[in-house]
Every structure is written in structure tokens, then in C-alpha cells.
């Protein structure tokens, strides 16, 4: 098969080892994930790409520790994932910001163990990083979709996790905001070097962002192919190499001639 393992230069951060997931609902067995093997290197940006409902979100939930695999295991830094942990923060597809807290309150949500001064310093730092200065005291209800998503990313970054697990974070945004947010995410990733697992069904999004794109099949999800995106950032989305990689994935998913 293809390169399941992390790039040789990087230390393995996350290992998914023969993971299968079967849901039993009303006596009906549904296999959602089938024998997934994947390694992600420290500081790597990996996109899980697949059609809607294929089980990529389920895999991400298992990586976060919200679900446990039916068989197989998931390890982070060699340690088995059993429950959620602030070292890997999940950023939700739906708006996950808490509507009863201000932007400041949201970003500081995971920082209760710090002293007041340290907490304020961290909040200010991440408010600035995601460009929400002036909105510290604003409630999410009064923010645009893109701003809410920035606040959620800042809340995740503020606890200084090693990993971010993003579940179609920009899916509900308009296309211009989405492009801007991709750029911001890359800028933040380059500044902080977190390991990022990013779930999307958008092929362009995957090729623009990731070091590697994991192409998944329809349910039960298996890994069809892993594509190395060997284009340095910032990526020129009209370069021949970009188009070649993108079209390759289109073909892989079987869409190339149907469009």
C-alpha cells in the first residue's frame, strides 16, 4: 500500500493501529471504520478527506478520546488514548464556542489553573493571534461565523495543546471567509507547530493545507490512499504540481470524469 507511516524525519505523535469501529443501533450493526492504520508525525498537518458520512469524523472523535474503537488502538506519544485530554483539543464543526461567555471568557475557559495575571496575558496573546482585538467583551451571538470559529481556535490554542483535531471547522463559512481562515490557520500552525488533524470533504481545502492528505473511502471507511503534498507554503493554487495532485485525488475518489 502507501506511506502509512509518518515522514521519517519526524517523531511519531499519533498512531492509529488496526482501528475498526462498529455501531450497534436498534439491533442493526453498522461498520463505520474498517481496519484503519495511520501514523502522524510531530508537528505534521494531516487532512482526512472523504465523502460526507464516511466515518472520518468518527475517526477524529476516537483520536480525541470521545469514542473508543471496537478493535485496535490509538496511541498518542506511545500512550493509549482512553479519554479526552486537554493536550489534544477538538474544534467542532458546529459552533462550539460557549454562548454564555464572552470571547475573553471562552478563550480563558481552559486556563483556570493559572494565576489571574498569567491567564490575562495568555488571553490577550491569543486574542491578538486570531485577530479579535476589540471584541474581548463581546458575546458570540454578536459575532460573525468566522469570528466565532476564530474564538474557538483561540480557546483551543490557549491551553497549549500538542494537537488540534479540527472537524470541518470552516464548513459553515462563506467561501471568501473560508479562504481567509485557511490562510490564518496555516499562519498559526507555522507559528506554533502543533500537530493538526483536519477533517474535510473539500479536496481543494485538503490540498491547500496539508502535508499529507489521507483519502478515505465511503462507509465503512478505509484508507484508500495517502497523498504527499510536496509543495512549500504559501501554495500557488494554479501551479501545475498543485493541479496534478488535486486532479489525482479527484480521480482517486472517482469524480474526475463525472463533473
Amino acid at each position, binding site marked *: 500500500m502507501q506511506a502509512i507511516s509518518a515522514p521519517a524525519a519526524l517523531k511519531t505523535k499519533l498512531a492509529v493501529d488496526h482501528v475498526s469501529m462498529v455501531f450497534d443501533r436498534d439491533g442493526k450493526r453498522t461498520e463505520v471504520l474498517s481496519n484503519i492504520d495511520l501514523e502522524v508525525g510531530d508537528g505534521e498537518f494531516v487532512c482526512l478527506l472523504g465523502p460526507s458520512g464516511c466515518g472520518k469524523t468518527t475517526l477524529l472523535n476516537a483520536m*480525541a478520546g*470521545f469514542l473508543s474503537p471496537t478493535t485496535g488502538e490509538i496511541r498518542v506519544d506511545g500512550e493509549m488514548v482512553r*479519554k*479526552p*485530554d*486537554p493536550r489534544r*483539543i*477538538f474544534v*467542532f464543526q*458546529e*459552533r*462550539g464556542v*460557549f*454562548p*454564555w*461567555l464572552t470571547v475573553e471568557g471562552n478563550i480563558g*475557559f*481552559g486556563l483556570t489553573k493559572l494565576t489571574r495575571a498569567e491567564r490575562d496575558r495568555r488571553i490577550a496573546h491569543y486574542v491578538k493571534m486570531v485577530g479579535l482585538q476589540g471584541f474581548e467583551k463581546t*458575546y*458570540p*451571538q454578536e459575532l460573525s461565523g468566522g469570528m466565532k470559529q476564530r474564538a474557538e481556535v483561540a480557546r483551543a490554542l490557549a*491551553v497549549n495543546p500538542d494537537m488540534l483535531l479540527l472537524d470541518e471547522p470552516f464548513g459553515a463559512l462563506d467561501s471568501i471567509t473560508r479562504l481567509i481562515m485557511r490562510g490564518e490557520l496555516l499562519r498559526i500552525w507555522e507559528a506554533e507547530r502543533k500537530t493538526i488533524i483536519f477533517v474535510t470533504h473539500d479536496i481543494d481545502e485538503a490540498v491547500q493545507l496539508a502535508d499529507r492528505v489521507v483519502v478515505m473511502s465511503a462507509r465503512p471507511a478505509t484508507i484508500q490512499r495517502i497523498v504527499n503534498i510536496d509543495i512549500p507554503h504559501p501554495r500557488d493554487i494554479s501551479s501545475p504540481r498543485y493541479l496534478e495532485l488535486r486532479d489525482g485525488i479527484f480521480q482517486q475518489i472517482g469524480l474526475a470524469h463525472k463533473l
Partner: protein
Amino acid sequence: MNALSQPARWERFFWPILATALLLALWYYSVRWTGTKVFPSPLEVERGLAELVRHHVLWWDILDSLRRVAIGFGAAVLIGVPLGLTLGWYPAANQVVNPVMQILRPISPIAWIPVAIIFFGVGDDAAIFLIFLGAFFPIVVACINGVANVSSVYRRAGRNFGLTPPQLLARVLFPAALPQILVGLRIALGIAWLVVVAAEMIAVDSGLGFLVIDSRNSGKRYDLVVAAILMIGVIGLILDVAFRRLEKLRSVRWGFRLES
């Protein structure tokens, strides 16, 4: 101005005042035309109200009613909210308690009057117990549903940040459920105000409910009966309006559909 735009400022006051005036006129002329000697006209009620104020009974009756509501409703909040949050948090416990609650819930607090009198005798405690009963169940049910309806995204986000179960309850489930809990509290307060009047007619000898029944029994003073009834309505409205102001607080406003 088209149909979708807001009514002008004067219209918002003009039409309700006009409707009230028409109602008063209808009342007045109905009394005149039927020539009733028992039912009072608005003017007689107004004089009755003035008499009550002059004799300083009205304020004490209002204060007594409000005091009973405050104690009964307050106790229902203090016991009902933690209980409801706990039951919402542990669905298994809720399953155990739910059948009993569903049987007790639709019983009018009025039906408990004889029981209340056996337990507490005729007096304040019986009235307060009835108010407590009336307010308790809507509060518990609102808290259970409020917690049960909290989006799983918020629960998972809370757990992701390493919250312990009590922290999750205090920092995620409670604030997330608060808008729904406030609605339950408002309903419960309305019920408490209904119940206090009924309880005062039977169990005690002060308060607005007592004023209604006493005015009738001691000399058939229907002008005072209607005056007391109007006071009950006005104070009930004030309580509701005051409570609704809580829904405007910024940390819960997200949970209410924005008006205008």
C-alpha cells in the same frame, strides 16, 4: 410605513390604552343598564380601592401575600434547582423518580389544602407549603429538561478541557441550561401567585386572597372584592415583568429569541 415595520411609538401606547378604556366603558354601562345592585361599577371599585388604601389594610395584605410567595417560591428554587440539575445529570436517577413526579405534577396544589392543614394546621405554614408544591414541579422539570437538552458539543468541549463532573455541571451544563431554567422559574412564579390567593382564602386570615373572601363574607362588599382582584392582577403582572428582565441579562440572552 409598511406592515413589517414596527408600530410607531404613540401606537404602542395608544391602542392598549384605547382597548382598556373601551373595556372599562363596557363594564360601566353594563352595570348601569342592567341596574344591578350587587356588582360594582368601575367608579365604585375605584372608591373601594381608595378606602382600602386609606385604612392601611391593602399594603399589609399585599406584603403578607408577597412574603408567602417569597418563602414558598424561594424554598422551591433552593430545593428544586439542585434536584432538577442532578436528575438531568443522572438519567438513571431520573428514570427512578420520573413516574412519581409525573403523578404528582398534574395535581392542582388546591387539592392539597386539606393535607396541608393536617400537616401544618391553619396558618402561614400551610399556605407556604401549598405555594412550594405549586412552584416545585415546574422548576424541577425545567431543570431536568434544560440539562438534558444541552448540546453534546458543549458537553464534549467541557470534557475536552479536562473538567471534572462537578466542574462540568457548574461551568457548562448549568449555564447552558440557564435560559430554559429561567423560563421554568417564571412559570413557577406565576403559579405561586395563583396558589397564594387560593391558599389565603382558606388557610389564613391575611393577604389578598383573604381580602377577597373577607370582603364578600363581611357585608358583601363587592366593590372591595373587585378592587382586591384587580390588585392581584396588577401585582402578578409586575412580578412577571420584573422576572422577564432577568432574561435580558447578557449571559442568558442567547437562549431567547430576540424580540424586535
